[in-house]
C-alpha cells in the first residue's frame, strides 16, 4: 500500500517538475556609477542559479525556478544589492547600479598632520609597523624612527620630539588612549635619553604633528598615540643578547585563544660598550638598567577586550666631566631612577553600534639626582663662588590618568564620540643646597576634561571631523575651551586634500611651578593644509602649516631660581613639509625622503626678545633606504639625517634683566647610520624559532656633530655640546621561539 502511495506521489512530483521545467533567462548589466563591474556574483537567492559578470559587466543565466525570487548582487567594496524579480516564463532583464560602500579602505581619511604606522590599510598609514624597528637611525627607539618624518627636529642633546618649532614638552604620548608620564628615561645633562618602552609591544603608532583629535589634550604641538598589541598569535618565548643588554620573556596564549599573559625582564649595562667606545664622560657608575614588564589580555566577549600592561625600571648612572667653571676641577652628576607604570584598558561593544573604551594608567617615578664638583683627587670640593653647583634633588612623582570614551557609529563610517578624562599629578621635590639646607615643595594638580567629536561622512569622498574639548585645571583654577575641525576631500583614487584647524592648551611646565604669580594655560592655534597621493606602493604628501603661540610662560630670576612670571610669551611657526616614499620603482628597494622647512620665532621663558629657539633648525631632511637582499637573507638599512645649523644663545641675567651675552649658529648636522638585520630563518619551513641578528652603526663616517654650546657660569668660557661618542656600534641577537600548538588543536578536537 505504502509503495503504491509513494509511487503516486512520485508521479505527481515528477509531473510538477516537468511543468516548471520551462527555463527563464535572467540577464542584465552591473555597473557602479561610472564603469561596468566584472567578476560580480549575481545570485538567485536560495537557488543554485546565478552568474558572474563578464568584463563588460554583463551577466546572463537560465533558471528553471518559478515564482517570486530575490536577485542578490554582491561585490567587495560595494553595498549589497537585492531586488525582487518574478519568474513567469518571460525573459527578465535587470540592470543594476551598485553603490560604493563607505569603508575604511576606500573612504577619504582626515589625514592632515597625521602619520600612522599600522596594519590598517588606511590612507594615513604611510609606515609599516616594522619600519619603527628597521629604520637605521632609530636605534630601536620609537621616536628615533619618527624623527625621519617631516615635522620632527634632529635634536641630539636632549630627548623628546621637537615638533614644528615646539619644545619636547609640547609633545605628549598616549598608550591605549591614556597619558604616559616619563615616556623617556630621566634627563641627564646634554645626553639624549631613550624611550622606556620596547617598540615590539605596540601594533600601531599614530604621530600627529598638529591638528589632532579632541580626545587628546594638554599638548601644544604634537600627540604620539600608541596602541598596544592584542592577543598574540601563539605562545612564545624570546631571548635577546647584545653588547648592551640581555633579557628574556615569555608569552602564554590560553588553549581557547581567549586570554594571554606574559612577562619579561632585561638587564642593560653599558660597561662593555663604554670600554670599547670612548665616551666624553668619565663614568664612575656606568649606566645600568633593570627593566621588567608583565601583561595580560583577556577577550571578555566576542567584541570585548581587557588589557593590562605593567612596567618597572630601576636604573642609575654617575659620571664626571672636566668642569668648565674651574680649571682642574670636575663636575659630577649622578642619577638613580625608579619607575612604575601600569595601564589597564577595556573596550567593549554595547550593541546598537555603541562602543565603550575605558582606560586608567598610573605612574610612580622617583629620581635621586646629585650634582657637585670634585678636585683632581676626586674628592668633593667646592671652589669659592661655585656653591650653587653642589645640590641634591630628590623628586617623587605620582601620576594618575583615566579616560572614558563612548562611541556611537552612525550610518556608514560616520560616528560620534564623547567622554571624560581625569588627570591627577602629585610632584614632590626636595632640593638640598650645598649647606645642607633643604627646600621641599609639593604640587598637586587635577585636570578634568570633557570632549566630544564627530566624524561626518557626507559622501565616500568628503568627510569632516569636528570636535571640542573643555578643560578645568585645579592648579590654575581656570578653564579652557578648545575647538577642533578638519575636512578631507577625495580628488581621485588614493588622492586627497585635507585641512585642519585646532586650538590646543597646555598647563605651564611643572619645573616652573609653584609660581607666586597667577598663571593661565599656554595656547597654540594650528592651521594645516595637506595634499596626499598614495598609489601602487608610492606615497607622496605635502603639507603647509601655520601655528600661533599665545600665553607662553615667561620666567624671571628670583634669588637665582628661574620661576614663572606671567603668560606674556608668544610666538609662531610656519613651514612646508614634503614626504615621498617609493617601494616600487627600484626593485627590492624601499626608500623615503622627507624634508621640512621651518620658520619660527618665539619669546618665552627667559628669552630677551622673540628669537628662533635653539631647538629649531630651518631645514631638516632625512633619507631612509631599505633593501632586502634575498640571497643573503639580510635587510640592509641606511639613513641619512640632515639639519641646517640651529641658533645658539647664551642668555645671562644682569641683575635686573635677561640679555644675550653671546649668540651664533651651530654647524650643520649630518648623520649617516647603517644597520644590517640578518634573518637566517626566513623562508624556513616549520620554523619554530626566529632569530634576528642586528648590527647598527650610527654616524658611520665619524662626522663631527655639534648640538650647541655651554658656557661657564661667568660666561667667559664656552664649550661645544657634542655626542658622548662620535660613532656608536651595536651588535645584538633576538631569538623568539614559537611554542607548538598543533598538538593542542588535535587534542581539543578529540575531546
Amino acid at each position, binding site marked *: *500500500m*505504502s509503495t503504491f*502511495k*509513494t509511487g503516486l*506521489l*512520485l508521479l505527481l*512530483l515528477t509531473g510538477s517538475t516537468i511543468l516548471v521545467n520551462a527555463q527563464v533567462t535572467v540577464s542584465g548589466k552591473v555597473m557602479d556609477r561610472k564603469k561596468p563591474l*566584472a*567578476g560580480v*556574483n549575481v*545570485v*538567485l*537567492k*536560495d*537557488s*543554485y*542559479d*546565478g*552568474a*558572474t559578470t563578464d*568584463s563588460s559587466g554583463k551577466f546572463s543565466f537560465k533558471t528553471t525556478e518559478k515564482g517570486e525570487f530575490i536577485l542578490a548582487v554582491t561585490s*567587495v567594496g560595494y553595498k549589497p544589492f537585492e531586488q525582487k524579480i518574478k519568474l513567469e516564463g518571460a525573459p527578465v532583464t535587470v540592470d543594476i547600479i551598485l553603490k560604493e560602500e563607505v569603508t575604511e579602505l576606500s573612504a577619504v581619511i582626515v589625514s592632515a598632520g597625521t602619520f600612522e604606522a599600522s*596594519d590598517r*590599510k588606511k590612507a594615513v598609514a604611510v609606515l*609599516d*609597523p*616594522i619600519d619603527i624597528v628597521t629604520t637605521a637611525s632609530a636605534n630601536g627607539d620609537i621616536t628615533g624612527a619618527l624623527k625621519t618624518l617631516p615635522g620632527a627636529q634632529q635634536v641630539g642633546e636632549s630627548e623628546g620630539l621637537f615638533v614644528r618649532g615646539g619644545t619636547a614638552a609640547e609633545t605628549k604620548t598616549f598608550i591605549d588612549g591614556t597619558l604616559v608620564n616619563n615616556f623617556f628615561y630621566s634627563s641627564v645633562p646634554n645626553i639624549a635619553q631613550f624611550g622606556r618602552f620596547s617598540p615590539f609591544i605596540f601594533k600601531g603608532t599614530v604621530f600627529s604633528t598638529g591638528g589632532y583629535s579632541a580626545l587628546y589634550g594638554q599638548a601644544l604641538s604634537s600627540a604620539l598615540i600608541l596602541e598596544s598589541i592584542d592577543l598574540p*598569535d*601563539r605562545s612564545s618565548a624570546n631571548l635577546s643578547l647584545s653588547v648592551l643588554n640581555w633579557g628574556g620573556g615569555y608569552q602564554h596564549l590560553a588553549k581557547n585563544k581567549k586570554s594571554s599573559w606574559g612577562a619579561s625582564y632585561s638587564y642593560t649595562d653599558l660597561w662593555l660598550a663604554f670600554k670599547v667606545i670612548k665616551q666624553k664622560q668619565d663614568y664612575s657608575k656606568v649606566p645600568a638598567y633593570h627593566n621588567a614588564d608583565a601583561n595580560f589580555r583577556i577577550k571578555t566577549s566576542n567584541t570585548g577586550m581587557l588589557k593590562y600592561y605593567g612596567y618597572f625600571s630601576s636604573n642609575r648612572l654617575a659620571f664626571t666631566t672636566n668642569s668648565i667653571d674651574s680649571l682642574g676641577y670636575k663636575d659630577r652628576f649622578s642619577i638613580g631612577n625608579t619607575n612604575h607604570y601600569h595601564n589597564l584598558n577595556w573596550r567593549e561593544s554595547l550593541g546598537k553600534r555603541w562602543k565603550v573604551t575605558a582606560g586608567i594608567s598610573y605612574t610612580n617615578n622617583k629620581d635621586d639626582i646629585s650634582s657637585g664638583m670634585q678636585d683632581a683627587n676626586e674628592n668633593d670640593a667646592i671652589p669659592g663662588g661655585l656653591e650653587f653647583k653642589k645640590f641634591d634633588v630628590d623628586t617623587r612623582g605620582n601620576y594618575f590618568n583615566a579616560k572614558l570614551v563612548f562611541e556611537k557609529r552612525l550610518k556608514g563610517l560616520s560616528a560620534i564620540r564623547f567622554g571624560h578624562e581625569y588627570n591627577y599629578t602629585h610632584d614632590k621635590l626636595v632640593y638640598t643646597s650645598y649647606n645642607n639646607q633643604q627646600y621641599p615643595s609639593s604640587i598637586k594638580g587635577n585636570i578634568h576634561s570633557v570632549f566630544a567629536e564627530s566624524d561626518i561622512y557626507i559622501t565616500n569622498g568628503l568627510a569632516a571631523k569636528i570636535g571640542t574639548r573643555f578643560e578645568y585645571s585645579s592648579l590654575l583654577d581656570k578653564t579652557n575651551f578648545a575647538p577642533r575641525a578638519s575636512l578631507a576631500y577625495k580628488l581621485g583614487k588614493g588622492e586627497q586634500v585635507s585641512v585642519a584647524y585646532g586650538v590646543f592648551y597646555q598647563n605651564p611646565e611643572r619645573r616652573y611651578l609653584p609660581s607666586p604669580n597667577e598663571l593661565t594655560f599656554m595656547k597654540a592655534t594650528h592651521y594645516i593644509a595637506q595634499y596626499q597621493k598614495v598609489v*601602487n*606602493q608610492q606615497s607622496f604628501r605635502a603639507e603647509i602649516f601655520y601655528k600661533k603661540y599665545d600665553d607662553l610662560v615667561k620666567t624671571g630670576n628670583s634669588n637665582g631660581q628661574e620661576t614663572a612670571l606671567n603668560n606674556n610669551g608668544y610666538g609662531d611657526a610656519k613651514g612646508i613639509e614634503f614626504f615621498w616614499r617609493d617601494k616600487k620603482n627600484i626593485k627590492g628597494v624601499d626608500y623615503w625622503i622627507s624634508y621640512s622647512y621651518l620658520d619660527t620665532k618665539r619669546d618665552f621663558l627667559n628669552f630677551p626678545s622673540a628669537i628662533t629657539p635653539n631647538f629649531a633648525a630651518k631645514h631638516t631632511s632625512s633619507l631612509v633606504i631599505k633593501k*632586502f637582499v*634575498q*640571497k*643573503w*637573507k639580510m*635587510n640592509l638599512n641606511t639613513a641619512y639625517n640632515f639639519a641646517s645649523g640651529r641658533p645658539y644663545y647664551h642668555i645671562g641675567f644682569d641683575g635686573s634683566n635677561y640679555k644675550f651675552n653671546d649668540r651664533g649658529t651651530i654647524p650643520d648636522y649630518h648623520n649617516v647610520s647603517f644597520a644590517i638585520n640578518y634573518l637566517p630563518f*626566513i*623562508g*624556513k*619551513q*616549520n*620554523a619554530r624559532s*626566529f632569530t634576528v641578528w642586528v648590527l647598527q652603526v650610527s654616524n658611520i663616517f665619524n662626522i663631527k656633530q655639534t648640538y650647541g654650546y655651554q658656557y661657564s657660569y661667568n660666561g667667559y668660557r664656552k664649550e661645544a655640546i657634542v655626542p658622548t661618542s662620535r660613532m656608536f656600534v651595536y651588535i645584538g641577537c633576538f631569538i*623568539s621561539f*614559537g611554542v607548538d*600548538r*598543533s598538538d593542542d*588543536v*588535535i587534542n581539543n*578536537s578529540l575531546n
Partner: protein
Amino acid sequence: MKKLLLLMPLSLLTFVSFAQSEKYVKAMEKLVPSVDTVWNVDQLKELSNSFERIADAEKTQWLPYYYAALTRVNAGYAIMMSGATGADKTDPEGNKAQELITKAETLSKDNSEIFIVKKLIATLMMVGDPMNRYMTYGPAASEALETAKKLNPENPRVYLQEGADKINTPEQYGGNKEEGKKLMEEAKKKFETFKPESNIHPNWGRGQVQYYLSR
C-alpha cells in the same frame, strides 16, 4: 490506514530531501572536476562564485564553501603568477577565501582538507607582504599544514603542498628540489591508494604532482 497516513509524510520527507540532495550532487558533479583543470583568474573567480551560490543555498554543506575558498585562493595565486605582485592585488582574494573557509570550518571541524586550504591562504597572504607578515602568516601556514597531516596522514595533498613549498622556495631559505621531488613521489604514492568519500569530495592535485615530477 492510520499507519499509512503516518508513513506518508515521512516518505514524502525522505523523498524531498533525497531529491534535493540529488540536485546538489548533480550541480557539484558538474563543477568539481574544473577545480583541477582551471587556472585562469576570471574562470577561477567564476567557479568560486558558482560554488558560493550552492553553498549559500544549501547552508549545511561544507563542500561548496570549501571549493569556493579553494578556487578563490587559487585565483589569488593565478593573479600572482600573471605577474601582479603586492598585497593590494592578492589580499582581496585571500580575505574572501578566508571568509569562505571559516564558513566551511563551522560546518566541518577538524577536517584535513580544510586545513590544506587554510595553509594555501596563509601562504598567499604572507607572499603578499613578506617583510611585515612572515612572523604571523609564516607559522600560521606551517601550523595549518601540520594539522592537516595530523588529522589525516594519508591525505596526498599534504605531501603535495610540502613538496611544492620545498621546490618553490629558493635554496637559501630552506628550499630543496631533491627533497621536494621525494615528497611529490610520496604524494603520488598516497594518491594511488586515496579514495575520496564520494565523487564530489576533494580529489584534486594529481595533475600538479605530475607537473612537478615532470619538471
